[in-house]
């Protein structure tokens, strides 16, 4: 029989049979689990697009996003100062990145950094996706003073001032909502005139 090193004697002689076996076992286990880690890559599907990607084109007509008239074109005459609605570009309602909040204010109410060139007859539109955690923003109407109405995200109470380029005036949102150009067409419908002037969606 071959003389083997017993654990204790072997300490002085360098590697023992027991330590060698243990080492091989640990290395094998580490290898096995390490190769399992590559599975995590498979389990996380590749990105399809880069976050919110809008498909709005200049010229697209704005339609109601919700309510009884969802899908119907928004007429300029249907809104008075202090009103706001959620709107989609016509025919592109399945992409949440296309959701905008269309607001009508007094024409003289706009202050910088609002891009007045992107507004028309007091109509202004901003991305409706809160820059905090992606909820859809709502409209906090002020009946007494329509121009003091503001945009609020009901999830964590971020507040945006639509008369000042949707500047963050309260709450945890890190950046303003991006503005997008709108104009009133000859037939009284509203249409987009540009792309968003900044990033949309949560800034994470």
């Amino acid at each position, binding site marked *: 029989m071959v003389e083997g090193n017993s654990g204790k004697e072997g300490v002085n002689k360098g590697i023992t049979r027991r330590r060698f076996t243990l080492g091989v076992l640990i290395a094998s286990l580490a290898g096995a689990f390490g190769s399992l880690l590559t599975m995590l890559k498979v389990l996380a599907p590749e990105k399809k697009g880069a*976050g919110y990607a809008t498909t709005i084109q200049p010229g697209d007509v704005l339609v109601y996003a919700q309510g009884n008239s969802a899908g119907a074109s928004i007429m300029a005459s249907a809104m008075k100062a202090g009103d706001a609605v959620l709107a989609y570009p016509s025919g592109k309602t399945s992409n949440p990145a296309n*959701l905008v909040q269309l607001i009508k204010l007094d024409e003289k109410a706009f202050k910088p950094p609002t891009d007045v060139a992107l507004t028309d007859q007091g109509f202004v539109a901003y991305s409706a996706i809160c820059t*905090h955690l992606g*909820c859809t923003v*709502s409209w906090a109407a002020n009946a007494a003073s329509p121009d003091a109405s503001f945009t609020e995200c009901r999830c964590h109470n971020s507040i945006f001032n639509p008369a000042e380029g949707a500047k963050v005036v309260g709450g*945890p949102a890190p950046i303003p909502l991006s503005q997008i150009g709108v104009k009133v067409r000859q037939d009284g419908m509203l249409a987009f005139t540009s792309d968003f002037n900044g990033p949309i969606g949560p800034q994470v």
Partner: protein
Amino acid sequence: MSMIFKWLDERLELKKFKEKFLSKTFPTHPTFLLGETALFSFITLAATGIFLGFLYEPSTRMVSLFGAMVPAAYASVVRIDLLPMGLIVRRIHHWSAMIMIAAILAHLLRVYFTSSYRKPREINWLVGLSLWGMAMIAAFTGYLLPYSQFSVTATSIAYYMAKSMPWIGDWAARLLFAGDFPSEGTVPRFFFMHVMLIPGTLIGLISLHMLILIKQKHTEPRTNRERKEAQGGRRLIGIPIWPEQAVISLSYFLFLLFVTVLMASYIPLNPIETYGPPSPGTPVMRPDWYFLVVYGFLKLVPGDLVFTLLGGKITPETIGGVIFPALNFLAYALVPFFDGAKDPQHYMENPLHRPFMTSLGVGAIIFLCMMAVAGYIDVLHITPKAMTAYALVTTAAAWGISYVLLRWYNRKRGL
């Protein structure tokens, strides 16, 4: 009956099992029912979950429901609600989840305030914390399944919270949500996690929790010490598992079930038909109470708090949704190591006799309550800044006042 018992005993040695295991002494204290409440709620959850699992469809394909096109998951839950007993089973499931988390928290507080986490029970404290975390994740993955407007909004918020993790956020969010959210992969993945992965982990952790408990035994009420000394030093005072403890536990389980069914019958919750299927607008909504702390804290983080740390982007979402919950759990995990003991402790402490740890606990409770209140700043008309100040002041006051009072009380006792 005796014939069956004899037949089984000859094969499984039931008598031996009874002598060795079922005769084990079980110390009694009313607060020991808190942990049992959590355990029994979990059993109710599993039972009702099996019923719901037969009827639920984990898919977002669009189907017709009363003439409207809605996601199949939403339609299947509406159909469950319309079944005889369907709605009540769904409500029992949801109520049990709330009761389970409430019981875990109450149990945790009991262990904390009686200092039962000290040596040798540090490991079980950590296992208990993981159980709490797992129960919250179980509840959270359950949120999405009905695929109502509420579900989608809540899950979307969590998706961006996961995404806001520095360095790994983008990948971690795609791993957990099976791609971007909303996409068709998320509901099947959450369904699998909710009915398989998480309950499996919970069962494993519960078993570990119980095994360690059986090995280490309960901490006993202080009064047992004097009784033991009078009786000549028995190791534990209590009642055997079979039949006394078993009868108490079974009666308690049935009572708990009665309360749960009563609540499910009369107190509606998560009315998905009111929320409706996913739509563009976000309604006013708040998460279930156990998420209010994180929800409230998210509202308080100022929006301009954005910076880069070692190449990782830290945003208000990161601070509120990742760092804050992680720091909370870390603080709780450190408790038994911060307030350790050199020798094994086997008796519950009177919280009034431990001013420092008790006042720390009181401060923490007030802080967490204030964070939950912060979830309501919109209806209370408080600005985030003012709310932050209120929270800090009340927390400091609760901590300080309780500490001073307890010190004064102990000085009067002569300690």
